[in-house]
Protein backbone atom coordinates (compact mmCIF):
# COMPACT_ATOMS: atom_id res chain seq x y z
CA UNK A 1 0.00 0.00 0.00
CA UNK A 2 2.83 2.38 0.93
CA UNK A 3 4.43 1.36 -2.34
CA UNK A 4 1.32 2.40 -4.27
CA UNK A 5 1.28 5.80 -2.52
CA UNK A 6 4.94 6.41 -3.33
CA UNK A 7 4.35 5.24 -6.89
CA UNK A 8 1.46 7.68 -7.46
CA UNK A 9 3.27 10.61 -5.80
CA UNK A 10 6.42 9.94 -7.81
CA UNK A 11 4.40 9.57 -11.01
CA UNK A 12 2.54 12.86 -10.50
CA UNK A 13 5.72 14.72 -9.59
CA UNK A 14 7.46 13.30 -12.65
CA UNK A 15 4.55 14.37 -14.85
CA UNK A 16 4.57 17.83 -13.25
CA UNK A 17 8.31 18.08 -13.87
CA UNK A 18 7.86 17.14 -17.54
CA UNK A 19 5.28 19.96 -17.73
CA UNK A 20 7.14 22.48 -15.61
CA UNK A 21 5.40 25.44 -17.25
CA UNK A 22 2.11 24.46 -15.57
CA UNK A 23 3.66 24.77 -12.11
CA UNK A 24 5.28 28.04 -13.06
CA UNK A 25 1.97 29.54 -14.25
CA UNK A 26 0.20 28.83 -10.95
CA UNK A 27 3.11 30.25 -8.96
CA UNK A 28 3.40 33.34 -11.17
CA UNK A 29 -0.34 33.86 -10.87
CA UNK A 30 0.06 33.92 -7.08
CA UNK A 31 2.93 36.38 -7.25
CA UNK A 32 1.17 38.69 -9.70
CA UNK A 33 -2.18 38.75 -7.90
CA UNK A 34 -0.45 39.44 -4.59
CA UNK A 35 1.61 42.19 -6.21
CA UNK A 36 -1.34 43.97 -7.83
CA UNK A 37 -2.77 45.15 -4.52
CA UNK A 38 0.18 47.31 -3.40
CA UNK A 39 0.26 48.79 -6.90
CA UNK A 40 -3.47 49.49 -6.96
CA UNK A 41 -3.92 50.71 -3.41
CA UNK A 42 -0.85 52.87 -3.31
CA UNK A 43 1.88 53.41 -0.79
CA UNK A 44 0.20 53.58 2.57
CA UNK A 45 2.28 51.34 4.90
CA UNK A 46 -0.29 50.94 7.64
CA UNK A 47 -3.04 49.98 5.21
CA UNK A 48 -0.75 47.54 3.37
CA UNK A 49 0.34 45.92 6.61
CA UNK A 50 -3.28 45.55 7.65
CA UNK A 51 -4.47 43.90 4.44
CA UNK A 52 -1.38 41.75 3.85
CA UNK A 53 -2.51 38.49 5.52
CA UNK A 54 -5.93 38.53 3.89
CA UNK A 55 -4.68 39.40 0.41
CA UNK A 56 -1.87 36.86 0.44
CA UNK A 57 -4.24 34.16 1.65
CA UNK A 58 -6.87 34.99 -1.00
CA UNK A 59 -4.17 34.88 -3.68
CA UNK A 60 -3.04 31.49 -2.37
CA UNK A 61 -6.63 30.22 -2.47
CA UNK A 62 -7.12 31.31 -6.08
CA UNK A 63 -3.76 29.97 -7.20
CA UNK A 64 -4.43 26.59 -5.61
CA UNK A 65 -7.83 26.56 -7.40
CA UNK A 66 -6.16 27.09 -10.78
CA UNK A 67 -4.48 23.72 -10.88
CA UNK A 68 -7.37 21.79 -9.34
CA UNK A 69 -9.27 21.15 -12.55
CA UNK A 70 -6.20 19.38 -13.93
CA UNK A 71 -5.92 17.09 -10.91
CA UNK A 72 -8.02 14.24 -12.32
CA UNK A 73 -9.05 15.52 -15.76
CA UNK A 74 -5.94 14.40 -17.65
CA UNK A 75 -5.95 10.96 -16.01
CA UNK A 76 -9.65 10.69 -16.81
CA UNK A 77 -9.12 11.56 -20.47
CA UNK A 78 -6.33 9.06 -21.16
CA UNK A 79 -7.84 6.21 -19.16
CA UNK A 80 -5.20 6.00 -16.44
CA UNK A 81 -7.80 6.95 -13.82
CA UNK A 82 -9.80 3.80 -14.67
CA UNK A 83 -6.68 1.77 -14.04
CA UNK A 84 -6.29 3.44 -10.64
CA UNK A 85 -9.86 2.47 -9.78
CA UNK A 86 -8.99 -1.10 -10.70
CA UNK A 87 -5.70 -1.11 -8.82
CA UNK A 88 -4.62 -3.43 -6.06
CA UNK A 89 -4.82 -0.78 -3.33
CA UNK A 90 -7.94 1.00 -2.00
CA UNK A 91 -8.97 4.04 -4.03
CA UNK A 92 -8.90 6.25 -0.93
CA UNK A 93 -5.17 5.65 -0.61
CA UNK A 94 -4.58 6.56 -4.25
CA UNK A 95 -6.74 9.67 -3.83
CA UNK A 96 -4.70 10.77 -0.81
CA UNK A 97 -1.51 10.30 -2.81
CA UNK A 98 -2.88 12.40 -5.69
CA UNK A 99 -3.84 15.18 -3.26
CA UNK A 100 -0.39 15.00 -1.64
CA UNK A 101 1.32 15.36 -5.01
CA UNK A 102 -0.97 18.29 -5.84
CA UNK A 103 0.05 19.98 -2.61
CA UNK A 104 3.78 19.48 -3.21
CA UNK A 105 3.41 21.05 -6.64
CA UNK A 106 0.94 23.86 -5.89
CA UNK A 107 0.80 24.48 -2.13
CA UNK A 108 4.33 24.06 -0.85
CA UNK A 109 5.87 26.59 -3.29
CA UNK A 110 3.32 29.21 -2.12
CA UNK A 111 4.29 28.74 1.51
CA UNK A 112 7.96 29.04 0.57
CA UNK A 113 7.58 32.19 -1.51
CA UNK A 114 5.07 33.97 0.75
CA UNK A 115 7.76 35.57 2.98
CA UNK A 116 9.10 37.34 -0.12
CA UNK A 117 5.64 38.58 -1.06
CA UNK A 118 5.20 39.77 2.52
CA UNK A 119 8.11 42.18 1.96
CA UNK A 120 6.00 44.12 -0.56
CA UNK A 121 3.48 44.73 2.20
CA UNK A 122 6.11 45.70 4.74
CA UNK A 123 4.90 42.95 7.03
CA UNK A 124 7.04 42.94 10.22
CA UNK A 125 9.73 40.27 10.13
CA UNK A 126 8.30 38.64 13.24
CA UNK A 127 5.07 37.89 11.40
CA UNK A 128 6.48 36.16 8.31
CA UNK A 129 7.11 32.82 10.10
CA UNK A 130 3.48 32.86 11.26
CA UNK A 131 2.32 33.56 7.70
CA UNK A 132 4.49 30.79 6.25
CA UNK A 133 3.41 28.33 8.93
CA UNK A 134 -0.27 29.13 8.40
CA UNK A 135 0.19 28.49 4.67
CA UNK A 136 2.07 25.26 5.37
CA UNK A 137 -0.81 24.02 7.51
CA UNK A 138 -3.62 25.44 5.40
CA UNK A 139 -2.64 24.66 1.80
CA UNK A 140 -2.79 20.84 2.25
CA UNK A 141 -6.39 21.30 3.43
CA UNK A 142 -7.07 23.29 0.24
CA UNK A 143 -5.67 20.43 -1.86
CA UNK A 144 -7.70 17.78 -0.04
CA UNK A 145 -11.01 19.68 -0.10
CA UNK A 146 -10.37 20.83 -3.66
CA UNK A 147 -9.77 17.26 -4.77
CA UNK A 148 -13.29 16.32 -3.64
CA UNK A 149 -14.68 19.07 -5.86
CA UNK A 150 -12.40 18.11 -8.74
CA UNK A 151 -13.56 14.50 -8.49
CA UNK A 152 -17.24 15.51 -8.39
CA UNK A 153 -17.02 17.81 -11.43
CA UNK A 154 -15.00 15.33 -13.49
CA UNK A 155 -16.29 15.16 -17.04
CA UNK A 156 -18.94 17.84 -16.46
CA UNK A 157 -19.20 20.47 -19.18
CA UNK A 158 -18.06 23.85 -17.85
CA UNK A 159 -16.65 22.00 -14.87
CA UNK A 160 -14.05 24.70 -14.16
CA UNK A 161 -16.54 27.36 -13.07
CA UNK A 162 -18.69 24.83 -11.25
CA UNK A 163 -15.60 23.66 -9.40
CA UNK A 164 -14.89 27.20 -8.16
CA UNK A 165 -18.49 27.67 -7.02
CA UNK A 166 -18.39 24.34 -5.23
CA UNK A 167 -15.00 24.61 -3.59
CA UNK A 168 -14.46 28.31 -2.75
CA UNK A 169 -17.19 28.42 -0.05
CA UNK A 170 -15.60 25.36 1.55
CA UNK A 171 -12.28 27.20 1.64
CA UNK A 172 -13.73 29.96 3.87
CA UNK A 173 -12.82 28.40 7.24
CA UNK A 174 -9.23 27.89 6.09
CA UNK A 175 -9.08 31.49 4.89
CA UNK A 176 -10.47 32.87 8.14
CA UNK A 177 -8.13 30.81 10.33
CA UNK A 178 -5.09 31.34 8.10
CA UNK A 179 -5.39 35.10 7.73
CA UNK A 180 -6.65 35.36 11.31
CA UNK A 181 -3.55 33.75 12.74
CA UNK A 182 -1.33 36.46 11.23
CA UNK A 183 -3.69 39.24 12.30
CA UNK A 184 -3.81 37.95 15.87
CA UNK A 185 -0.04 37.69 15.95
CA UNK A 186 0.30 41.25 14.68
CA UNK A 187 -2.10 42.43 17.41
CA UNK A 188 0.32 40.89 19.89
CA UNK A 189 -2.02 38.14 21.01
CA UNK A 190 -0.19 35.30 19.29
CA UNK A 191 -1.70 33.27 16.47
CA UNK A 192 -1.33 29.94 18.23
CA UNK A 193 -5.04 29.35 18.63
CA UNK A 194 -5.77 29.74 14.91
CA UNK A 195 -2.72 27.72 13.94
CA UNK A 196 -3.79 24.86 16.21
CA UNK A 197 -7.29 24.98 14.72
CA UNK A 198 -5.75 24.89 11.24
CA UNK A 199 -3.71 21.85 12.28
CA UNK A 200 -6.88 20.20 13.58
CA UNK A 201 -8.60 20.97 10.28
CA UNK A 202 -5.67 19.38 8.46
CA UNK A 203 -5.83 16.21 10.56
CA UNK A 204 -9.59 15.95 10.06
CA UNK A 205 -9.39 16.42 6.30
CA UNK A 206 -6.52 13.92 6.05
CA UNK A 207 -8.76 11.40 7.76
CA UNK A 208 -12.00 12.00 5.87
CA UNK A 209 -11.27 13.68 2.53
CA UNK A 210 -9.56 10.67 0.84
CA UNK A 211 -12.69 8.54 1.23
CA UNK A 212 -14.91 11.38 0.03
CA UNK A 213 -12.64 11.81 -3.01
CA UNK A 214 -12.80 8.06 -3.67
CA UNK A 215 -16.62 7.98 -3.55
CA UNK A 216 -16.83 11.05 -5.77
CA UNK A 217 -14.48 9.44 -8.30
CA UNK A 218 -16.54 6.25 -8.38
CA UNK A 219 -19.71 8.28 -9.04
CA UNK A 220 -18.06 10.36 -11.78
CA UNK A 221 -16.55 7.35 -13.52
CA UNK A 222 -19.85 5.48 -13.98
Amino acid sequence: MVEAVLCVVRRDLLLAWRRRSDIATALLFFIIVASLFPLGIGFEPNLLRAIAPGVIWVAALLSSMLSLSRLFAADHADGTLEQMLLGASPLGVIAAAKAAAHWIVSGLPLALIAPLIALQYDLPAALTPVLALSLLLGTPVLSLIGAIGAALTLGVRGGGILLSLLVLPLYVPVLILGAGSVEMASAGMGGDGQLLLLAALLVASCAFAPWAIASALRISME
Partner: protein
Amino acid sequence: MLEASGLQCARQGRTLFRSLTFSVAAGERLRIAGANGSGKTSLLRILCGLLAPNEGEVRWKGAPIGTLKEEYTKEIVYLGHAPAVKDDLTPAENLEISCKLAGLTVKADAGLARLGVPADVPVRKLSQGQRRRAALARLAVSESVPLWLLDEPYAALDTQAAATVDALIAAHAARGGAVIFTTHQETGAGASRVLELHG
Protein backbone atom coordinates in the same frame (compact mmCIF):
# COMPACT_ATOMS: atom_id res chain seq x y z
CA MET B 1 -14.63 -18.39 -12.47
CA LEU B 2 -16.86 -15.49 -13.43
CA GLU B 3 -20.64 -15.65 -13.38
CA ALA B 4 -23.01 -12.94 -14.51
CA SER B 5 -26.67 -13.37 -13.68
CA GLY B 6 -29.65 -11.36 -14.87
CA LEU B 7 -27.60 -8.33 -15.89
CA GLN B 8 -29.55 -5.33 -17.10
CA CYS B 9 -28.01 -2.11 -18.26
CA ALA B 10 -29.70 1.11 -19.31
CA ARG B 11 -27.80 4.16 -20.50
CA GLN B 12 -29.50 7.49 -21.15
CA GLY B 13 -32.91 5.86 -20.69
CA ARG B 14 -32.29 3.18 -23.33
CA THR B 15 -32.08 -0.43 -22.27
CA LEU B 16 -28.97 -1.95 -23.82
CA PHE B 17 -29.49 -5.49 -22.60
CA ARG B 18 -31.61 -7.27 -20.02
CA SER B 19 -31.54 -10.61 -18.17
CA LEU B 20 -28.13 -11.42 -19.54
CA THR B 21 -26.81 -14.55 -17.86
CA PHE B 22 -23.58 -16.32 -18.67
CA SER B 23 -20.49 -17.69 -17.02
CA VAL B 24 -16.87 -17.93 -18.02
CA ALA B 25 -14.72 -20.87 -16.99
CA ALA B 26 -10.95 -21.19 -16.78
CA GLY B 27 -9.35 -21.56 -20.19
CA GLU B 28 -12.24 -19.91 -22.02
CA ARG B 29 -12.02 -17.14 -24.56
CA LEU B 30 -15.34 -15.34 -24.74
CA ARG B 31 -15.88 -12.86 -27.54
CA ILE B 32 -18.62 -10.29 -27.04
CA ALA B 33 -20.01 -9.34 -30.42
CA GLY B 34 -22.59 -6.78 -31.42
CA ALA B 35 -23.22 -3.64 -33.45
CA ASN B 36 -21.93 -0.22 -32.40
CA GLY B 37 -23.87 0.98 -29.39
CA SER B 38 -25.14 -2.46 -28.44
CA GLY B 39 -23.51 -2.23 -25.03
CA LYS B 40 -20.26 -4.17 -25.43
CA THR B 41 -18.18 -1.61 -23.56
CA SER B 42 -20.84 -1.14 -20.88
CA LEU B 43 -20.93 -4.89 -20.33
CA LEU B 44 -17.15 -5.03 -19.92
CA ARG B 45 -17.25 -2.09 -17.51
CA ILE B 46 -19.93 -3.87 -15.49
CA LEU B 47 -17.84 -7.05 -15.44
CA CYS B 48 -14.83 -5.23 -14.04
CA GLY B 49 -16.88 -3.26 -11.53
CA LEU B 50 -16.48 0.26 -12.95
CA LEU B 51 -20.20 0.43 -13.72
CA ALA B 52 -23.00 -0.86 -11.52
CA PRO B 53 -25.65 -2.87 -13.43
CA ASN B 54 -29.25 -1.70 -13.08
CA GLU B 55 -30.18 -5.24 -12.14
CA GLY B 56 -28.38 -8.50 -11.61
CA GLU B 57 -24.94 -9.18 -10.27
CA VAL B 58 -21.48 -10.39 -11.18
CA ARG B 59 -19.84 -13.08 -9.09
CA TRP B 60 -16.18 -14.02 -8.98
CA LYS B 61 -15.53 -17.52 -7.65
CA GLY B 62 -18.93 -17.41 -5.98
CA ALA B 63 -18.71 -14.01 -4.25
CA PRO B 64 -20.28 -10.78 -5.58
CA ILE B 65 -17.57 -8.50 -6.95
CA GLY B 66 -19.02 -5.52 -5.03
CA THR B 67 -18.01 -7.11 -1.73
CA LEU B 68 -14.62 -8.35 -2.96
CA LYS B 69 -13.37 -4.92 -4.13
CA GLU B 70 -9.55 -5.00 -4.32
CA GLU B 71 -9.56 -8.77 -3.87
CA TYR B 72 -11.28 -8.89 -7.25
CA THR B 73 -9.50 -6.08 -9.08
CA LYS B 74 -6.19 -7.74 -8.21
CA GLU B 75 -7.33 -10.73 -10.25
CA ILE B 76 -8.21 -8.87 -13.46
CA VAL B 77 -6.58 -6.86 -16.20
CA TYR B 78 -8.92 -4.41 -17.91
CA LEU B 79 -7.81 -2.58 -21.02
CA GLY B 80 -10.41 -0.07 -22.11
CA HIS B 81 -10.96 2.13 -25.15
CA ALA B 82 -8.48 4.74 -23.95
CA PRO B 83 -4.93 3.41 -24.05
CA ALA B 84 -4.22 4.40 -20.41
CA VAL B 85 -0.71 5.60 -21.16
CA LYS B 86 0.58 9.06 -20.25
CA ASP B 87 1.92 11.09 -23.16
CA ASP B 88 4.73 12.61 -21.10
CA LEU B 89 6.13 9.30 -19.88
CA THR B 90 8.01 6.65 -21.81
CA PRO B 91 6.37 3.27 -22.50
CA ALA B 92 8.70 1.67 -19.93
CA GLU B 93 7.69 4.17 -17.22
CA ASN B 94 4.02 3.74 -18.14
CA LEU B 95 4.18 -0.03 -17.91
CA GLU B 96 6.12 -0.04 -14.65
CA ILE B 97 3.67 2.35 -13.01
CA SER B 98 0.54 0.55 -14.18
CA CYS B 99 1.95 -2.79 -13.03
CA LYS B 100 2.97 -1.40 -9.65
CA LEU B 101 -0.55 0.00 -9.16
CA ALA B 102 -1.92 -3.43 -10.06
CA GLY B 103 0.35 -4.96 -7.44
CA LEU B 104 2.67 -6.69 -9.92
CA THR B 105 6.44 -6.50 -10.01
CA VAL B 106 7.59 -7.04 -13.57
CA LYS B 107 10.37 -6.49 -16.04
CA ALA B 108 8.85 -3.85 -18.27
CA ASP B 109 11.44 -4.13 -21.03
CA ALA B 110 10.58 -7.75 -21.80
CA GLY B 111 6.89 -6.91 -22.19
CA LEU B 112 7.59 -3.96 -24.46
CA ALA B 113 10.01 -5.98 -26.57
CA ARG B 114 7.33 -8.64 -27.09
CA LEU B 115 5.05 -6.01 -28.63
CA GLY B 116 7.91 -4.27 -30.43
CA VAL B 117 7.57 -0.88 -28.72
CA PRO B 118 10.60 1.37 -28.15
CA ALA B 119 11.04 1.61 -24.37
CA ASP B 120 12.59 5.05 -23.95
CA VAL B 121 10.79 7.41 -26.32
CA PRO B 122 8.06 9.61 -24.81
CA VAL B 123 4.67 8.20 -25.79
CA ARG B 124 3.81 11.61 -27.27
CA LYS B 125 6.18 10.85 -30.15
CA LEU B 126 4.68 7.44 -30.94
CA SER B 127 2.04 6.71 -33.57
CA GLN B 128 -1.52 5.70 -32.65
CA GLY B 129 -0.78 2.05 -33.31
CA GLN B 130 2.41 2.11 -31.25
CA ARG B 131 0.45 3.66 -28.38
CA ARG B 132 -2.00 0.75 -28.53
CA ARG B 133 0.96 -1.60 -28.51
CA ALA B 134 2.43 0.15 -25.47
CA ALA B 135 -0.91 -0.35 -23.69
CA LEU B 136 -1.18 -3.99 -24.76
CA ALA B 137 2.34 -4.68 -23.48
CA ARG B 138 0.56 -4.97 -20.13
CA LEU B 139 -0.75 -8.35 -21.29
CA ALA B 140 2.72 -9.68 -21.95
CA VAL B 141 3.61 -9.22 -18.27
CA SER B 142 0.25 -10.25 -16.77
CA GLU B 143 0.49 -14.03 -17.09
CA SER B 144 -0.23 -14.41 -13.38
CA VAL B 145 -3.52 -12.46 -13.51
CA PRO B 146 -6.37 -14.92 -14.10
CA LEU B 147 -8.98 -12.82 -15.91
CA TRP B 148 -8.36 -10.48 -18.84
CA LEU B 149 -11.07 -8.06 -19.96
CA LEU B 150 -10.14 -6.42 -23.25
CA ASP B 151 -12.16 -3.75 -25.02
CA GLU B 152 -11.39 -3.77 -28.74
CA PRO B 153 -7.83 -5.09 -28.36
CA TYR B 154 -7.37 -5.23 -32.13
CA ALA B 155 -8.27 -1.60 -32.85
CA ALA B 156 -5.51 0.36 -34.66
CA LEU B 157 -3.17 -2.64 -34.80
CA ASP B 158 -1.35 -3.93 -37.89
CA THR B 159 -1.50 -7.63 -38.75
CA GLN B 160 1.77 -8.41 -37.01
CA ALA B 161 0.73 -6.82 -33.71
CA ALA B 162 -2.72 -8.40 -34.00
CA ALA B 163 -1.03 -11.80 -34.37
CA THR B 164 1.02 -11.12 -31.23
CA VAL B 165 -2.16 -10.26 -29.31
CA ASP B 166 -3.78 -13.44 -30.64
CA ALA B 167 -0.81 -15.45 -29.42
CA LEU B 168 -0.90 -13.79 -25.98
CA ILE B 169 -4.63 -14.49 -25.63
CA ALA B 170 -4.23 -18.10 -26.77
CA ALA B 171 -1.32 -18.68 -24.40
CA HIS B 172 -3.28 -17.18 -21.51
CA ALA B 173 -6.23 -19.47 -22.14
CA ALA B 174 -3.91 -22.46 -22.51
CA ARG B 175 -2.41 -21.87 -19.07
CA GLY B 176 -5.88 -21.76 -17.52
CA GLY B 177 -6.67 -18.05 -17.61
CA ALA B 178 -9.90 -16.62 -18.95
CA VAL B 179 -10.22 -13.87 -21.55
CA ILE B 180 -13.29 -11.80 -22.36
CA PHE B 181 -12.87 -9.43 -25.27
CA THR B 182 -15.00 -7.33 -27.56
CA THR B 183 -14.49 -6.74 -31.23
CA HIS B 184 -16.90 -5.99 -34.02
CA GLN B 185 -14.52 -7.31 -36.64
CA GLU B 186 -14.69 -10.99 -37.50
CA THR B 187 -11.09 -11.54 -36.42
CA GLY B 188 -12.40 -13.88 -33.76
CA ALA B 189 -8.90 -15.05 -32.88
CA GLY B 190 -10.20 -18.49 -32.10
CA ALA B 191 -12.72 -17.36 -29.51
CA SER B 192 -14.02 -20.46 -27.80
CA ARG B 193 -17.48 -18.89 -27.49
CA VAL B 194 -19.28 -15.85 -28.84
CA LEU B 195 -21.85 -13.81 -26.94
CA GLU B 196 -23.98 -11.73 -29.28
CA LEU B 197 -25.55 -8.53 -27.97
CA HIS B 198 -28.63 -7.30 -29.83
CA GLY B 199 -29.07 -3.56 -29.38
